[in-house]
């Protein structure tokens, strides 16, 4: 066994102490008919060979492309200090801080994370972390139902489709209804949440709404009229859930200032690798009024018996190990190490740096918009955007595939992302961040121009 500690006679000594002759005796209670035969797995692989195998698999992924892919996960520069800190065993080989006297590091780091995200969102309470943006959004929606004792959730089609599908799965389980608010199909507001449709859905007295969920920016990169959506929700007695992207909050209005009761979203952009989808960081934040409904752990500041400042998990009566079937959620293991990554990232990059990250992404996206328009792919929508946009490309799927062959990962065809939106049949959702280079933009535009001109070059 590769990580086994035993010297030659250790096992014999243990067996002798127990008073048995073979470790098999310890498994005698497994009924004979149910005992397993040898597993059909390979023999142990020595580290040298295993390392080679892992390098080989990693090498089969192509991460050398000029990538314009966003759609909920974003390439950013992560200062080297972040991963250096995460590699400390003191962080990653500890567990949930059940014993606060020997866990002040993790506890204080979570308190700091809660505080940083509270400031970014301008909300009062931030949970210690949730699994990812999708599960966080689903839990946020369930919170609105518990708080209002209503059973219907309205979710904008501008929310990431994976989040909507996750929310649908959770709602189905809990016996709740999740209805989708359409997007405006055309005109200056095309691609944003249809406020008239929302008003009509909220007006149904037979089917009162617990919460309205909308994203800023939305899945098409567009900025939504969040204050109006919030006002409509509140006028109908519903809560307002904002799905946020945390880096954007350095420059965009924070949810706490436009009336959101809950903010949720994906924390991956805060220094967490793309890693094919995880481990990521689910953010859930809410107003003080909802603190007893928030799922997951909370860390509070307190003092020890000597009056020394210290941190501890608190308000645990919401949690599964105390409340069992009456808990606010079943969550136990969370994403603490990723919350730590986010804290170190934000602390290192600082308020000005985070603003630079968001604004540089916007600037690069302007450059991308102009270059693609010049190549024959103008923007599809008229509304304001931050750093992600849809461009019109006929036969977008095929063009996307051909661009891939030219070393360009041209975002994602909107027909793949939102197959039910006819208005998006011919589009590519593309993204730029501070790591996008002018050279990459020129390669993309050049390859696209060639493809649209008939595949020459």
């Amino acid at each position, binding site marked *: 066994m*590769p990580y086994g500690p035993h010297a030659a006679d250790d096992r014999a000594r*243990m*067996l002798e*102490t*127990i*008073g048995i002759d073979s*470790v098999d005796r*310890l498994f*005698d209670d497994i009924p004979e*008919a149910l005992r397993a035969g*040898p*597993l059909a*797995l390979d023999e*142990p*692989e020595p580290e040298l060979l295993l390392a080679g195998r892992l390098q080989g698999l*990693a090498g089969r992924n192509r991460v050398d492309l000029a990538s314009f*892919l966003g759609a909920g996960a974003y*390439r950013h520069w992560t200062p080297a200090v972040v991963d250096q*800190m995460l590699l*400390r*065993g003191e*962080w990653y080989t*500890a567990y949930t*801080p059940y*014993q606060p*006297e*020997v866990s002040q590091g993790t506890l204080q780091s979570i*308190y700091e994370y809660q*505080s940083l995200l509270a400031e970014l969102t301008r909300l009062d309470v931030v949970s210690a972390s949730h699994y*990812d943006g*999708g*599960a966080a959004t689903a839990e946020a929606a*369930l919170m609105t139902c518990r708080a209002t004792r209503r059973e219907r959730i309205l979710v904008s089609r501008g929310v990431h*489709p*994976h989040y909507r*599908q996750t929310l649908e*799965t959770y709602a189905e*389980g809990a016996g709740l209804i999740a209805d989708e608010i359409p997007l405006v199909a055309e005109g200056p507001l095309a691609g944003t949440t249809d406020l008239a449709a929302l008003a009509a859905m909220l007006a149904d007295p037979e089917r009162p709404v617990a919460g309205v969920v909308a994203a800023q920016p939305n899945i098409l990169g567009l900025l939504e009229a969040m204050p109006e959506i919030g006002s409509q929700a509140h006028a109908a007695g519903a809560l307002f859930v904002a799905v946020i992207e945390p880096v954007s909050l*350095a420059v965009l*209005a924070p949810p706490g200032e436009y009336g959101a009761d809950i903010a949720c979203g994906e924390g991956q952009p805060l220094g967490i690798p793309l*890693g*094919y989808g995880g481990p990521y960081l689910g953010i859930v934040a809410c107003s003080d009024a909802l603190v007893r409904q928030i799922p997951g752990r909370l860390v*509070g500041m307190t003092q020890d018996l*000597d009056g020394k400042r*210290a941190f*501890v998990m*608190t308000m645990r009566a919401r949690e*599964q190990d105390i409340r*069992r*079937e009456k808990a606010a*959620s079943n969550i*136990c293991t969370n994403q603490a*190490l990723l919350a730590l990554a986010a804290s170190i990232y934000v602390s*290192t*990059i*600082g*308020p000005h*740096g*985070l603003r630079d990250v968001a604004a540089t992404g916007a600037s690069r996206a302007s450059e991308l918009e102009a270059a693609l328009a010049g190549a024959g792919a103008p923007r599809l929508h008229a509304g304001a955007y931050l750093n992600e946009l849809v461009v019109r490309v006929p036969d977008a799927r095929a063009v996307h595939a051909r661009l891939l062959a030219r070393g360009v990962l041209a975002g994602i065809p909107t027909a793949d992302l939102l*197959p039910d939106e006819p208005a998006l049949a011919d589009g590519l959702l593309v993204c730029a961040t501070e790591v996008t280079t002018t050279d990459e933009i020129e390669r993309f535009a050049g390859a696209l121009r060639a493809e649209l001109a008939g595949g020459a070059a």
Partner: protein
Amino acid sequence: MSVVGERLQPTIFELSRPGRGGGKIPHPPKDALDRIPAGALRANPAALPELSEPEVTRHYVNLSQLNYNVDTGFYPLGSCTMKYNPKLNEWAARLPGFAGLHPMAPDAVAQGTLQLLWELEGMLAEISGMEAVTLQPAAGAHGELTGLLMIRAYHRSRGDLARNEVLVPDSSHGTNPATATMAGFKTITIPSAPDGGVDIAAFTAALGPRTAGIMITNPSTVGLFEARIGELLAATHAAGALAYMDGANLNAILGRFRPGAAGFDVMHFNTHKTFSTPHGGGGPGSGPVGVGSRLAPFLPAPRVVREADGTFRLERTGERPSSIGRVRSFFGSTGVLVRAYAYILAHGASGLREVSDDAVLAANYMKTRLAGTYQVPFERACKHEFVASAADIKHRTGVRTLDIAKRLIDKGYHPPTIYFPLIVEEGMLIEPTETESLETMDAFIEALIEIAHEAETDPDLVKSAPHDAPVKRLDEATAARQPNLRWRAMAGAQMPCPD
């Protein structure tokens, strides 16, 4: 001397000084945001801390040293399987090809990761005796939710709408009943048998046309294998219900018992327990779910598909309409799964069986040695963990299990899980794992025996522990009554900074 560092730290907010930091990202053009309407922009900049990189480094290194952790010492936290985390796996997950891959990348550029995931599904299916596996759930509790939603979908697909109850033993993890609620079921709690196991008779009596499923942790939360599990599974299926196995304790039975082959319909794995992916101070974990043939059609989407030509792809949206849908965004916690994959390959079939053999041997050794000093309520052979009780000590001396746990900190150890499961008075759930040496276990046993003596001779010493830790016991009541859950810069320092 304290087993962890003793230098408490100011918060990053107290360390902040205007003008520090910077130098990471080029400045954008001044007009970068001019095209965005003013109403959508943030009016007041976020009041985030400003620190230099050296200060950030020192802050987080100093904070880290306040933590007890597996890399510095023995962490016998029952039910959590705090085994050694192999360093190769940290290296592997950080390979640029894995770490830099976008989750929406087309299948053609993700073949390495897709192959790894597909192979890992197969290995977990083999280990568990299940037909198929989803890697999507992010943690054990998330896997439980996935499993119960599939059970619900299964009954509905048969038009059997009356099954709204899930039977759960009172010794279960709290996640089990909490999950049942989230999945729309009513929890029926079944008292445990005197031997700490499932009360088969009580379970069988509670089974009926309203039972959707049962949730069993095997080995149980007191570390005992359910010897009559075959009977219970037969009764469950005879009642038309399905059986869920909470795989939290899988580390005890690798290569010895395959839940799917034995008749369980669905189970979750905790990769952060059994397959050594790091616990990260609370997470991330990962909670793959294995299912038998009855539930396979309902697995969450997307699954990894292997094409006839040997290439791999993800299922497309809507490709498998019987699926319960997504339980999270993107594929799953891939970085965690890379580590689990490496762990399984490093061990192979023989190594995995050795893992369980050694974990069970270690637990029985410690149990035998402690039996004279602490009560061991269940005498038969345990699996990878066991319960010791300080009930006698408490009645004699007033020293409680909580006090003993805190005193263990003074002796240099992380305490075991305490007061879980609640069915044992003053219980300590001790799980050594297979990666601890005999010397380490012996020293821990001596420490526990020493504390038992101290409880007789100097009970106040134990009751006031820890004495050698950066902080004493905490005021948890005030923390809950007057919650302070965030730093409010405007309010200034709320309590004196420790320096």
